[in-house]
């Protein structure tokens, strides 16, 4: 038995490593395409924060809902969306997960219960409450994982959503990725409490704070939180401390922070940490990391090629699907 569990754990960790690598490579590739003007709009890279997506989304069940903000490529991939379809969405092509109409900030895949991709800060926290109502009604202990940034916690909708979720005991795990900045604004300059998780106390919601650079820690915290939520005890609020290595979007000159700070976080990089851990435990043999990297590179390259070769949506479709039948 112990052996079986050990093996499952190993597989899980290797999968986590691979997924973090996939997300990172995906984002790098998207940035390259953006630089070559193959895609437009905003592009909010997730590089640096991969442990949160992989630790948290990877802990969800098939019948759970996942909903996120505009920095959501990582969450979508961790939820199992095909990289090719996500990339095609960034390219605005018909094979994109939203047919090229949603874009980088609006990834949807209802077959995976991935409910977007939202561009209005904190707006989707209210949506999550409604999905929670649907889960309650379904009565199968499904939950909603709702992901957002530190910038969202000062918005009125954050408050309304957390209060409602608590009063109605909605099965929602609110996961705040605190990467210390909302665009160029440091958390402590705009939030009355620097420890974001303290906010949850105003709503009598249990809460925890976790190192978002450590995928193992994230998974553990999320499992705890999900157990609470799944048991019908109402919402949970989890704060993951993390960092984005890149600018807010491709347009950000990063005037507001210095290179040292980025360096300090990079030294605790989530991929490197897990790699080291697995190498030390002997679970990742010599050359295995490089092999994984090659695999992942190839997968992302294939995704990019898929996107590049997917057609543009026909102009005639402009007026289609404004209304459901």
């Amino acid at each position, binding site marked *: 038995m112990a052996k079986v569990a050990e093996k499952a754990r190993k597989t899980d960790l290797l999968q986590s490593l691979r997924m973090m690598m996939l997300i990172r490579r995906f984002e790098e590739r998207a940035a390259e395409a953006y630089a070559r003007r193959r895609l437009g709009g905003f592009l909010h890279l997730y590089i640096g924060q991969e442990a949160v997506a992989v630790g948290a989304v990877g802990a969800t069940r098939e019948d759970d809902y996942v909903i996120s903000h505009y920095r959501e490529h990582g969450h979508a991939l961790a939820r199992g969306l095909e990289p090719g379809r996500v990339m095609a969405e960034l390219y605005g092509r018909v094979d994109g997960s*939203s047919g090229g109409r949603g874009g980088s900030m609006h990834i949807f895949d209802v077959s995976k219960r991935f409910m*977007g991709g939202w561009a209005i800060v904190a707006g989707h926290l209210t*949506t*999550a409450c409604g999905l929670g109502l*649907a889960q309650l*009604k379904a009565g199968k202990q499904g939950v909603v994982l709702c992901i957002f940034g530190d910038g969202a916690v000062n918005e009125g909708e954050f408050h309304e959503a957390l209060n409602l979720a608590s009063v109605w005991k909605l099965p929602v795990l609110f996961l705040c990725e605190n990467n210390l900045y909302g665009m160029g604004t440091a958390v402590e300059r705009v939030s009355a409490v620097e420890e974001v998780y303290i906010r949850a106390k105003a709503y009598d919601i249990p809460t925890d704070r976790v190192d978002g650079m450590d995928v193992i820690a994230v998974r553990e915290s999320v499992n705890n939180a999900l157990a609470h939520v799944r048991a019908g005890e109402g919402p949970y609020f989890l704060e993951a401390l993390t960092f984005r290595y890149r600018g807010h979007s491709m347009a950000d000159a990063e005037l507001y922070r210095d290179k040292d700070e980025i360096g300090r976080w990079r030294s605790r990089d989530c991929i490197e940490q897990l790699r080291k851990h697995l190498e030390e435990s002997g679970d990742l043999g010599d050359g295995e990391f490089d092999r994984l990297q090659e695999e992942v590179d190839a997968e992302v390259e294939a995704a990019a090629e898929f996107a590049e070769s997917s057609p543009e949506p026909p102009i005639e479709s402009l007026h289609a699907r404004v209304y459901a039948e």
Partner: protein
Amino acid sequence: MPEVTYRDALRSTLHEALSGDDRYFMMGEDIGAYGGSYSVTKGFLEEFGHERIRDAPIAESVIVGAGVGAAMGGLRPIVELMTINFSFLAFDQIINTASKVFYMSNGQINVPIVIRMASGGGSQLGAQHSHSLEGWYAHVPGLKVCVPGDPYDAKGLLRTALKDNNPVIFIEHTALYAKKGDVPDEYYDVPFGKLDIEREGTDVTLIGYGGSVSQVLQAADLLSEQGVSAECLDLRTLRPLDVDGIVGSVKKTNRVVIVEDDWRFGGFGGELSSIIQEQAFDYLDAPVQRVCGADVPMPYNKNLEAAALPQPEDIVDAVMAIR
């Protein structure tokens, strides 16, 4: 046919939905213990319980947002926002989420939600509580907008709204809740995008919706005393709009007066006027007229408020000016 109030027509239709399909549920402020601020949901809490009649905190954004989420998750929420004035606090959720999910997701997810709210001035509720901004919602692709002007339409349109798979903004008028009208016992519904010719006429077309329908009908009475035969249209839904119905009437009468409670400048009347001149230019014997609310925040004083709202006499004057 039985005479029923607008309020009861709404209540019985909601009751019908709640009884017939357990995906329907209601959310809103004071819809439960209080019985609804316009008493539309009185008794529902006792009958359907707290899980289906959800008294919400005063938090309009999450009321609508949770409704949208529930609809995305397969339920059929009916949200009550008390009045259109409070809908501005949920504005982002309505115009930037509800209306866009289906399009942005490429048709993967639809949002079958009905968002009810009461509109209109005339009760001395002051500037912050007397808006008539139906036209704003009608401007937004992805939304449908109902503006029932009598009990028959209240029931018929609400039935259609509840079956629709899109977000429907259902705007009731505060002055109408106690109004009685014929409502058949047999099942019927009122399709969206079909106006009602309340009265046929030959000399001028009067167009109203929601609260202005009764002003239009009163004006028609006054006009007929003066020998003017007015055709009265009740638009019933602003989006979809029955363009053919409007244009058809105008081609017959060659003169039009549009009546709405809302501020004139930049209001929905402008759209109606534009469509008419675009599609019936050669039929118009006079400029399309608009009789609207005054372009001021609504004053509290009774006389000032009456002066700020379109009155039957104003409509008559407008007609006489283009005879």
